[in-house]
């Protein structure tokens, strides 16, 4: 899985490309947690290029959101596909995240 990282202002935008499944999910978790720590939580996950997730992928998203929630924040997802939203809803994880249509909308949430 290719995980693109881009700095937009003071926010780090991570854009994984490909399915969020077992091994790749752990790599994404590491990248997300590193960005969370170094950026004090100013992180956006651009999920527009994630076609589907497996159970480990869901766990990783939940774990990172838990980590952020300890400091009063939530994982900001933008551009999530219909499939991803549906999976999150089925798994009852949807309320754990903040959703934005695109990266710019997510960036504005930090203002």
């Amino acid at each position, binding site marked *: 899985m290719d995980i693109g990282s881009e*700095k937009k202002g*003071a926010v780090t935008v991570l854009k994984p490309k490909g399915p969020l499944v077992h091994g790749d999910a752990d790599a994404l978790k590491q990248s997300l947690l590193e960005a969370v720590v170094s950026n004090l939580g*100013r992180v956006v996950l651009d999920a527009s290029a994630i076609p589907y997730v497996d159970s480990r992928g869901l766990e990783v998203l939940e774990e990172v959101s838990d980590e952020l929630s300890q400091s009063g924040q939530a994982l900001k997802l933008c551009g999530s596909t219909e499939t991803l939203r549906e999976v999150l809803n089925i798994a009852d994880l949807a309320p754990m995240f903040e959703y934005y249509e695109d990266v710019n909308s997510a960036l504005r949430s930090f203002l």
Partner: protein
Amino acid sequence: MFTREESFVASFGIVVVAIVVVLMGVTSWWIVRSQQELMVSSRLDQVRQVAGLMSQSAEALMISDNLSPLRRLIVENSQKYELQVCRVVLPDGTIVADADPSRIATTPLPANWSGGEGITASEDHGAGRVAVRRPLAVAGRGEAVLEIVADVNGISFWDAWETLAGIGAIGSLAMVAMLLIYRRTRSRLRALGAIREALLMYKGEHTPAEFLKVSPDFGIEAQAWNEFLNETEKLRDQHKRDEVNDRLDSRQRGTRGLDDACDTMPYGLILVGKEIRVQYANGAAAAFVQADRQAMMGSPLDQFMTQTEVLDAVKTAATGTSRRRAVIVDEIETDSGYTVLRYIVRPVRRTDPGDAMVIIEDITQQRVAEKTRNEFVAQVAHELRTPLSNIRLYAESLLEDGDDTTLRAKAINVINIETKRLARLVSDMLSVAEIEAGSMKLSADDVQLGDIFHELQADYEQQADEKNIDLSFNLPPKVPVIHADRDKFLMALHNLVSNALKYTANDGRVSVELQVQPNQIVVEVADTGYGISEEDQQKIFERFYRARDERLASIPGTGLGLSLAREIVRLHGGDITLDSQVGQGSTFTLSLPHHVEAA
């Protein structure tokens, strides 16, 4: 820490040596004594056998009154078996035969005698000799006694010197072996001795570990003991902390709901009490100071926060020196960029100083946005000022010399061009605002591409001429009609062409080429301008971004054009890509889906 001596070890060694010596002595004595008893027993057996044989012979010889052979037998056996006494005695004490012939009675053997009834066989041993008495039944005459006494050769320690030397040698070897073992185990014994003394010093759970430690020079056992003490103390400390936290938790359970509420806040909250120690910190505060939340509780604030200004403000607020709130903004440079934190410090109570509250807010993104906005306003002001200056200049010329037809034509033309430029600028800004708000809508209709390109050519010919740029439009013989939002599509093309002219030096070349492909149309805008570095190419389509090229610093621009053009084309389902090399120029390729109808 104890550096105990070897008292225990020395005592242990002396005791062992003493035990070995005593054991050697006892063993020697026992061996000598056993040999003596063995000799007595052996001598007794020998005397007993001699007595048995002699008594039979003596009875027979006495019956036949044949005393000479008897006396000879007595003498021979006495010599042969080294008997001290060997004699035949009648009940009245008359010695019939004896190893010493001088003691023999010369009288012949009586025909009979009495008084020998009740004589029994007996044996005795002791004091270095054995004695055996055997009754003799002389038929027809009476009873007699055979008495034999024999010395037993004693044995002394000197006689057993070989045995004792052997024992001594074995003991010495054992001692040497023990010394060697002792030398090898000495350090361990020292460590064990020191640990034993430490254990004797133990006074219960409050004994400090430092007091029980032994010198690590005693070896790995001592080091392991010290490590064990360290670990034990750590566990004890952890246990105490857990107890304190449990008590704290139970005390705070009543306010658990409030704690949870504070943890949902993205603002850091730190309550500081007397001695500037943290009484409470929410999750966000721990994240901002990058510390463990539990570790923060009860610890001095300066252990986690190094900003002197903030610490001074906290001290001032907590001691009641100042009752006003203090706002401190701190910028931190990190590997991932910079972070701006705003600290608000204020006393908790106005009348009873002692506690202060620190509120931490991450305002980095606001700062970035402010900076970008300021830069944008400056750029827009500059962009507006240039056409407005031209319009005002030519408008004033018209007012002064309105009759000059040449001037009037030129002034009107300039005013027209600059007005369009202003209109495009305003239109760009409005479009950006629409995109930002997500409210941009496309009003698609049939668009004659030929008209679009003719309009572009007309708009930019004069600008190209002013810089002596060769501006060319290459269109196919049959220019299609596409389905698009005309104004917005034109806006995208305007931005590409105006950028190409703007960033191409005098005497350069700009070409606009339309290609009609089966499923799309492609517009290539190529220039021989300054080119864009690879680093800038990554960000050139970002809003408000302007290339970091010093040669372009004097060229005005808002950093909106390319971003806007790509957003518009993407709304149409197409895209804009870039191919550029610094110093050689750039080519922007706009592609738009289009279905070519069969002729």
